[in-house]
């Protein structure tokens, strides 16, 4: 099976690329750049993301936005050119060690960006954490362990920990007066951790989780469990699915008539990027997440229009995470003038990075290298994530077990 992915090259991107290259060539002829003589090698960014299967859209969104951010800053990191080495993770945990080793040892990348899948994140963090280089940046996978027991000096995350978007969701459910709830998710890292955080918050605020349903990943037959929920009659249901699974869950939940009787809550991924596909089934559902489409800031509006122009589709939270990964790389390389081999200084710059232009609003790194960020309360209204307010201000992951804290 081919591992290198080049298939994301569309005609549009080819044209943009050609235009950019021509522009650079012209500019280069007039103004010799700083490294024109020294023939400095480009900074290598290894990318391990899914480009096929259920989560292909996530891999593409992250990659497109990451490249967009770096292009916006002139296409260079600290004055050096950038070379991307992308591998399709195929969402395969067994292939993760080989893929990671290949990027580190064969391609000798300076930065390693990935993954989407929490299981792969654990594999990568174990490999990278034993070394001083490269520096790993997680643009999605929320596994609590990556900035918990597996945290490391050279491991950063620009997305979220699974605990972060789920905990305020559990609080919300209790605050809205619900006393009993059923949790339902896939039986894998993200599902278990998010349901755990939701339950923790719900029960701390006086609620009681009466049943925890976990379905084998990535199965999407929900009928049996919907009948079970209908028989249990809880006040609310707390769910996490994403992508195609989320679309199907929302549709089945509505079609079984449960939506009108038992309100559905969850971390924002439940409704992220699927509102159009799920249609009326997603309407009115309240979720909590570190981003909302309709955040009313210049940074968000500018980002959304720029992303729409290059990617040809609307931005989502995954694109935001890719975009902020680009910002982090730019700041890290700028702080050391492109000499990214100076690891300690690069790490310091990354720890102190600021994101005033982030589409999600300002955030910064915790001691465990995980974003301290606002978690928003959103509701699906007319197919859009309408912002209702901030569910938790500058929320920090507990980072249980991290030796950096």
């Amino acid at each position, binding site marked *: 099976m081919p591992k290198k992915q080049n298939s994301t090259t569309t005609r549009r991107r080819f044209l943009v690329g050609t235009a950019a290259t021509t522009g650079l060539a012209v500019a280069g002829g007039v103004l010799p750049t700083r490294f024109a003589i020294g023939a400095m090698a480009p900074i290598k960014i290894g990318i391990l993301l899914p480009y*096929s299967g259920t989560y292909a859209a996530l891999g593409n969104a992250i990659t497109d936005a990451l490249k967009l951010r770096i292009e916006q800053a002139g296409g260079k990191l600290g004055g050096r050119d950038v070379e991307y080495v992308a591998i399709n993770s195929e969402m395969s945990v067994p292939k993760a060690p080989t893929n990671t080793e290949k990027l580190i040892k064969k391609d000798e990348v300076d930065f390693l960006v990935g993954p989407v899948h929490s299981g792969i994140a654990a594999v990568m963090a174990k490999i990278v954490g034993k070394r001083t280089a490269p520096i790993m940046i997680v643009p999605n996978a929320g596994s609590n362990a990556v900035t918990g027991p597996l945290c490391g000096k050279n491991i950063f995350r620009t997305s979220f920990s699974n605990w972060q978007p789920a905990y305020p969701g559990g609080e919300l459910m209790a605050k809205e007066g619900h006393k009993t709830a059923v949790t339902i998710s896939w039986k894998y890292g993200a599902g278990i951790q998010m349901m755990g955080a939701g339950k923790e918050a719900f029960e701390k605020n006086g609620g009681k989780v009466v049943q925890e349903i976990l379905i084998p990943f990535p199965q999407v037959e929900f009928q049996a469990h919907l*009948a079970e929920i209908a028989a249990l009659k809880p006040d609310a249901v707390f769910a996490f699915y994403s992508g195609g699974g989320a679309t199907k869950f929302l549709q089945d939940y509505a079609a079984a008539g449960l939506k009108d009787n038992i309100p559905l809550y969850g971390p924002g991924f439940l409704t992220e990027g699927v509102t159009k596909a*799920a249609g009326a089934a997603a309407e009115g559902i309240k979720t909590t997440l570190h981003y909302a489409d309709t955040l009313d800031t210049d940074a968000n509006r500018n980002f959304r229009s720029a992303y729409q122009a290059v990617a040809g589709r609307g931005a989502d939270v995954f694109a935001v995470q890719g975009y902020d990964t680009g910002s982090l790389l730019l700041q890290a390389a700028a702080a050391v003038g492109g000499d990214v081999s100076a690891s300690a200084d690069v790490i310091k710059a990354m720890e102190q990075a600021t994101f005033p232009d982030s589409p999600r609003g300002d955030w910064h790194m915790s001691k465990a290298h995980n974003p301290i960020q606002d978690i928003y309360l959103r509701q699906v209204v007319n197919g859009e994530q309408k912002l209702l307010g901030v569910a938790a201000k500058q929320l920090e992951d507990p980072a249980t077990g991290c030796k950096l804290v």
Partner: protein
Amino acid sequence: MDLATFLIQVLNGVQYGFMLFLVASGLTLIFGVMGIINIAHGAFYMIGAYLAFWLTGVVGNLFLAIVLGIPLMVAIGYAVERLAITHLYHRDHLYQVLLTYGLILIFNEAQKLLWGTGFHGVRVPAILSGAVPLTDTLVYPHYRLFISVVCLGVAAGMYVAINRTKLGMMIRAGASNREMVEALGIDIGKVFAIVFSLGAALAGFSGMIGAPISSVYPGMGDQILIISFVVVVIGGIGSIKGAFVGAMLIGLADTFGQVLLPELSSMVVYALMAIILFWWPQGLFGRRV
């Protein structure tokens, strides 16, 4: 579990079984008659779902989309048989697996180029958007009942076509003794082309009719393929009756496995397969070799 819940779960299991039968019947037909292991069957299912999504967007109605989509699926099946499969009848199964695996890669890539990597939903036609109340909190969508009825219709239609028509006679004859059929002057190549096209159309049709409840997304064919093989193997490879019984068993086992043994639910169907193969190595309705 009270009686009402039990009956609802039986309904869920049977309905899932019907869906599985629709997909698996094409697979078992192709193997039983032609001896071809077609692992691109899931890809046909996926193409069907995407066609339903695309054509529904164009013509505005799922039923019309299905009417337009079926000839397209037959054409795709026919083209694949004429251009690729036909060269492998006299070869080992391994060649067929390699070829049809290659087809999966091609179809997945084509899907990405044509429709991108997003998730899509297909709207249930307005006439079937209602639901039957089951309990005070649970309703059962008309569309799911409709699918069950259609699956029963397809099962009955296939039974009649295979047992009562001339084409069915040729198909059955071709399945049991290819050389003899050829010696009697029947163009077995033509029969095979028809069977393969029908098999592809069945897979595509299940993708289309299932699209509103399965939703449409990349890689959806890979998931259905494995469970279809389980159904076919349990029922006995090549037996339509077996595929029906196998699909019902798997549908019920999976549904009750999820409710009663949630910790082991991913294993239940495979455990059932192992038990059945232990006593009936040929599957429940498989031919003795």
